[in-house]
């Protein structure tokens, strides 16, 4: 195949995380066989899995958090006791609010430090915040593992798929301590194993993952007529059921009604996770709590689901996973993410068809996208998201990410805090969201910072060859060549359309 620089740009930027610097040869390889370059990652065994020493399972993390919170509670109780005996006992301690969970959760939502000033600075590495607790340490460890994987991936297509699906089925770490400590393990356990597998399997793994159950309140939802519901006089919370239908599968207008949402909410009562004392099972594991489950048959979208324990809900998920509305919703989002804000209708229809005919085979879906003509012909009009931008910068500059603060800080500044979207619909996926005036100015500030620290040691003209070679526009080439310093040239390269668009 002839060398095709424009196609290499598509392969690297639209599908991947951009060319790596140094002697990677990414651009040359991509130009030689653009489709093959993108697809080669798909055929590696377990390509999407992320397993490293130091990364713990959800139950292990849950237990660590429960223990940690318990210790703090104990310490506070002891402190309160000794304070109470010393002080006059008559005064009931001024409305001290429950100090344990809520206050810790607050501390945790406490986001990364305002380290944005140091976004991706090379050295010396910032010392981690003093006395980081188990939640912060876990979050940073998970973040680092993810950033490293993306930085070192060859094309990065599989990692891009992980990020897409993780945003589709997002949780938000800002929900509280459990969501924050589980944000990484959720992605590793519920998303990654299925990124090249079946949609229905990912759906089930997600909706039964403790992080999702916590994020959308399902652990609190009780069947009004279940034993627990009657005893505690509590009932349904339809949050998870609604987002399953609206955001995870069928999409708004996908043919379901309020009654269907409520019925699904009843069906998945009892889907919860075991707590610290492990009465329902090993702490931090998914459990079906029959005591909280609404008894009886339910009708969802015209079909009756007989009572069958956890299988009742699993049957609904299996059915809506293969509903035509789901195929359409997923195909549209998928094409919108990779190709264009308004993707070519023919491409969407084709992807929908592939999704339906393969019963939601996500590897087939990804392959179909790469094999399509539209994905290569559509102009590069999408903007890199902040995450893609920071990862691509690190790859080009050959940074070995050692300190996640630089990335986490940069993502906060640019409005895409890691694993913490503002709502369950995830981060926006259209160019306008990231090409806003404020966002562009901040990107430029961050590029200038990166360049001011790294610019001396690199030749931006050589980097331009690695990024775009002869697909670089004469204007970009001239702008970089005429820059007054290497630093300035690097900042301009990182902000060039060739580097920002995909």
């Amino acid at each position: 195949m002839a060398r095709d620089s424009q196609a290499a740009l598509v392969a690297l930027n639209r599908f991947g995380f951009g060319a790596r610097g140094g002697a990677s040869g990414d651009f040359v390889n991509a130009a030689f066989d653009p489709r093959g370059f993108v697809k080669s990652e798909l055929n590696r065994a377990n390509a999407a899995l992320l397993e490293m020493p130091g990364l713990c399972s959800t139950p292990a993390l849950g237990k660590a958090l429960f223990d940690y919170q318990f210790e703090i509670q104990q310490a506070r109780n002891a402190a309160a006791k000794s304070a109470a005996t010393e002080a006059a006992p008559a005064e009931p301690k001024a409305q001290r609010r429950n100090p344990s969970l809520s206050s810790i959760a607050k501390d945790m939502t406490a986001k990364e430090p305002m380290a944005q000033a140091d976004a991706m600075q090379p050295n010396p590495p910032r010392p981690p915040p003093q006395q980081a607790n188990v939640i912060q340490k876990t979050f940073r460890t998970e973040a680092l593992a993810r950033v490293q994987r993306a930085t070192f991936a060859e094309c990065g297509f599989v990692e891009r798929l992980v990020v897409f699906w993780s945003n589709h089925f997002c949780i938000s770490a800002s929900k509280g301590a459990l969501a924050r400590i589980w944000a990484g393990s959720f992605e590793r356990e519920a998303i990654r194993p299925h990124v090249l597998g079946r949609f229905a399997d990912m759906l089930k793994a997600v909706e039964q993952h403790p992080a999702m159950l916590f994020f959308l309140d399902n652990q609190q939802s009780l069947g009004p007529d279940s034993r627990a519901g009657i005893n505690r006089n509590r009932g349904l919370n339809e949050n998870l059921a609604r987002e399953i239908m609206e955001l995870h599968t069928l999409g708004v207008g996908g043919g379901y009604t309020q009654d269907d949402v409520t019925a699904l909410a009843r069906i998945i009562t009892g889907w919860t996770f075991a707590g610290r004392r492990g009465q329902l099972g090993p702490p931090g594991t998914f459990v079906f709590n029959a005591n909280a489950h609404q008894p009886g048959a339910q009708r969802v979208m015209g079909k009756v689901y007989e009572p069958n324990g956890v299988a009742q809900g699993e049957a609904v998920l299996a059915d809506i996973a293969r509903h035509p509305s789901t195929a359409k919703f997923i195909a549209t989002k998928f094409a919108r993410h990779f190709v264009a804000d308004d993707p070519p209708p023919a491409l969407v229809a084709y992807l929908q068809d592939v999704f339906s005919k393969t019963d939601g085979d996500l590897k087939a879906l990804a392959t179909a996208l790469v094999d399509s003509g539209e994905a290569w012909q559509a102009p590069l009009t999408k903007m890199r998201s902040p995450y893609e931008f920071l990862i691509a910068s690190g790859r080009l500059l050959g940074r070995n990410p050692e300190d996640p603060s630089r990335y986490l800080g940069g993502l906060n500044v640019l409005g895409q805090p890691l694993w913490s979207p503002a709502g369950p619909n995830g981060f926006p996926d259209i160019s306008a969201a990231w090409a806003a005036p404020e966002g562009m100015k901040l990107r430029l500030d961050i590029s200038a910072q990166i360049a001011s620290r790294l610019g001396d040691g690199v030749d931006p003209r050589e980097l331009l060859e690695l990024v775009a070679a002869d697909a670089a526009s004469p204007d970009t080439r001239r702008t970089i060549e005429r820059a007054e310093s290497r630093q300035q040239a690097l900042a301009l390269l990182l902000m060039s359309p060739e580097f920002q668009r995909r």
Partner: protein
Amino acid sequence: MQCCEGLRSQATSRRSLLLGGAAFAAWAYVPKFARAADGRDPRLVVVILRGALDGLATVAPIGDPDYAGLHGSIALRPDGPNAAVMLDSFFGLHPAMPEFARMYRARQAAVIHAVATSYRERSHFDGQDVLESGFAGPGRVQSGWLNRALEALPKGERVTRALAVGPTTPLVLRGPAPTVGWAPVALPQVDDDTAMRLLELYQHRDPALASALTQGLQLEKAAQGDEMKRKPGTNGISAMRLVARGAAKLMAADDGPRIGALAFDGWDTHAKEGGPVGRLAQLLGGLDGALAEFESGLGERWRDTVIVVATEFGRTARINGTEGTDHGTGTVALLAGGAVKGGRVISDWPGLKPANLYQGRDLAPTIDLRAVMKGVLHDQFGLTDRVLAESVFPDSQPVKPMQGLVV
């Protein structure tokens, strides 16, 4: 569990701010007003509460015999500790909002109750589209009604004074009329020369990015304002105050924007919503603080100001099984500002009897939110019924502007 050993240590108190939860954007021009003759220099601030505010918890219909039963454990009470602040014999204001209560008594704040947009489903994102786009249905996200209202105004001087920048513009203010944005951020900034070179490249290669960067850079110029450079507060609640303080400072300037919009996230109280204290109370306290910041920051311009607080829809009248509320329909809108004809709750109360609830579960809306917005735009800026019904809120002819909202 050994993989987690050694990771335990003391809780840290080190916190900082996530900026995504609160941001401010404003029109990039000072409008030339026809009304300048009478010495008024009107200001309008639209505050969007994303996530669906529980109107029955914010301004509780305490006089409604069904309210206490429906709102159950989180219902407000007219007496006892943390009692609601009675606005009249029927409605009680959440006790986390003392500033709003004070404005109400000074006749500078009003409540519109049982209000809703034209949207009747229960998706946040579609609901926000309708609230902010001003179209009757979802899916029209190219421009917001406030932006289209701006287009109908005489343009005047370009705003040169703006302070810093934050990530996104709310849909309500998005569109062809150019806007500027601001959010508190501390970040070393790029030098002018690099910025100009990049701008030149964009002008040759990528007009869309050129336009975005141009606006971003213009904001920059007067960014050296003292308080804005200060480190932001410690959590989302104080961020609300901080953003309001910065926005007020911007809008108080003689050459500052007259029209702005803010969005605050986090109102989706499905579980443990809390009553007089708790999660919603904290958020309302943040909102209350933001309104107070506007009052003090706008100084003498406060008397010409209207702030409209609105949300995409309400929440269920009956609390759910987890001491929260699910997505509903009717809710409240709040007005505050020296120009508001305040001290009243405007409502055609539908009642909370089961038969009166919308679909048997939600407060039934009796006022179209567009009528409120139209009334404010008409009174503040003199926009005509025709412009309001055709371009600002398309196809809204039957929805008449509410009269007399502004002094």
